[in-house]
């Protein structure tokens, strides 16, 4: 570590700083052939608007082909005080994107003395996905994230879904991604339209109960999605973003909610 005093005007772009320091995404042409069954992936993550903000949740399993590699994977990652990213796809790429984003937002806020706009945050993830296009097309580094944040200027929570190449779509109600997501997208839609109340009208407790049931359901039909395992103290990861910022629901609360959520009708 040694300083060289920069002559340039600060732009607040951490990715540019990384590039100037010799960091770059892998060139897909130089990536050797990979046995895709050995890549760790597989997931169900979801997000929906509820009464106080947005809820983001995910299962904990990581798989490589048919093998279960890990049952305690945290797929909902804090990016800054008001933003979370839920990841589906190859964790190596997804975790790296989350790290770059986190430093990017904080670097911008500290250097420019104002937070990056929500629109800027949304585009920043899109840019990372676009830069990763080569690996995504090869099938060895695909990431399909959900980005959720709270827009402090408008006072409204936002959810964005991205495709593998970086296109962004704002979600007004609910979204899910990962291999288990097709199982639950219909349930989310049904709950929103014909459930006891629309998703946006539910309180945090009810929203968390629904998230647990959805992830249990996804795990029932998708082998790459892990169900909760109370004996091993493995539960879904659930976080909420409100105007106060994000907070994760503590494990002991999720455990209590889980017992309530999975109780069957007699």
């Amino acid at each position, binding site marked *: 570590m040694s*300083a060289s005093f920069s002559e340039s005007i600060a732009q607040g772009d951490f990715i540019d*700083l*990384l590039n100037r320091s010799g960091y770059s995404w892998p060139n897909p042409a130089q990536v050797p052939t990979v046995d895709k069954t050995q890549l760790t992936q597989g997931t169900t993550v979801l997000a929906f608007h509820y009464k106080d903000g947005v809820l983001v949740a995910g299962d904990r399993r990581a798989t490589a082909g048919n093998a279960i590699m890990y049952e305690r994977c945290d797929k909902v990652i804090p990016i800054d005080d008001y933003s979370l990213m839920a990841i589906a796809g190859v964790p190596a790429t997804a975790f790296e994107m989350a790290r770059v984003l986190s430093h990017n937002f904080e670097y911008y806020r500290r250097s420019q003395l104002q937070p990056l706009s929500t629109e800027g945050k949304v585009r920043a993830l899109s840019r990372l996905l676009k830069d990763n296009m080569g690996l995504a097309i090869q099938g060895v580094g695909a990431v399909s994230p959900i980005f959720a944040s709270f827009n402090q200027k408008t006072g409204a929570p936002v959810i964005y879904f991205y495709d593998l190449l970086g296109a962004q779509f704002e979600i007004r109600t609910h979204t899910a991604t990962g291999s288990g997501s097709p199982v639950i997208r219909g349930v989310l839609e049904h709950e929103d339209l014909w459930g006891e109340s629309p998703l946006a009208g539910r309180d945090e407790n009810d929203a968390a109960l629904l998230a647990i049931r959805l992830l249990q359901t996804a795990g029932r039909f998708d082998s790459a999605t892990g169900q909760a395992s109370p004996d091993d103290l493995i539960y879904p990861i659930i976080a909420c973003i409100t105007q106060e910022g994000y907070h994760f629901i503590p494990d002991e609360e999720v455990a209590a909610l889980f017992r309530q959520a999975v109780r069957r009708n007699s």
Partner: protein
Amino acid sequence: MFEEPFRWLEAISTRHSYVQEKLRKGQPVIAVPYNEGTLMLGFSSQPGKIFELYDRIAMGGLGHPADVERLRMTLLDLAHLEGFNRSEKDVTLARLLQFGIAPALKQNFEEVVRAPYLIQLLLMEIDFDNKPTFFRVNYDGHWESFKNGAVIAGDSNLVDVVEKKIAAAGFATMPLDQALLEACRIWESAKQDIEDDDWEDPAPTLKDAFEKWTLEAAVLSTVSPRKAIYRKITDAELETLKSACLS
């Protein structure tokens, strides 16, 4: 002129005098512990006296704003690259100073054909065991660390007086509002304790300072639930402080 050692020493001595004269009017920045973290405050004629550098590090500066800004950006770059390439737990002020800006500042100061940095920096850090440390960096790269608070000011006599008052005050057990008030009172009483016939202080009292300048204050809070524990003192808190100071 630089081929002779005497001339070089003379040039360095002249540089010291030049920089010290330029910094002489710099208003103090004070950093102290309190019962839930650390506090830094200072008056400034334009916004930009106290800054967040990293998750658990804050900085205050005096001197030429362009030089303060360049060093702030250098420290920001170093801290964020280190935090990204290694971990946020590897970002420590001692390393940023010892291996980062101190050698570069010294080299810059002693290359007499280059313009010296007109700065003094005050930095504070709370480590992952919630232990605070304060650092003072001089324009020539010399830096010191302090356990119980520190100050920078253009007038070295003022620095000595404020340091003694900080040591006697027992800030570490005070709640935030009391620490803010006590720090402001030290700022005022230290100015009144020193005499400087050569220079008229534009704001010798807190009343003058509140009228002429903007008070900036920020804390690193050990009770913050966030990863980044820096928080600016709000306008409402500053108004309460101002009322308490002037009552």
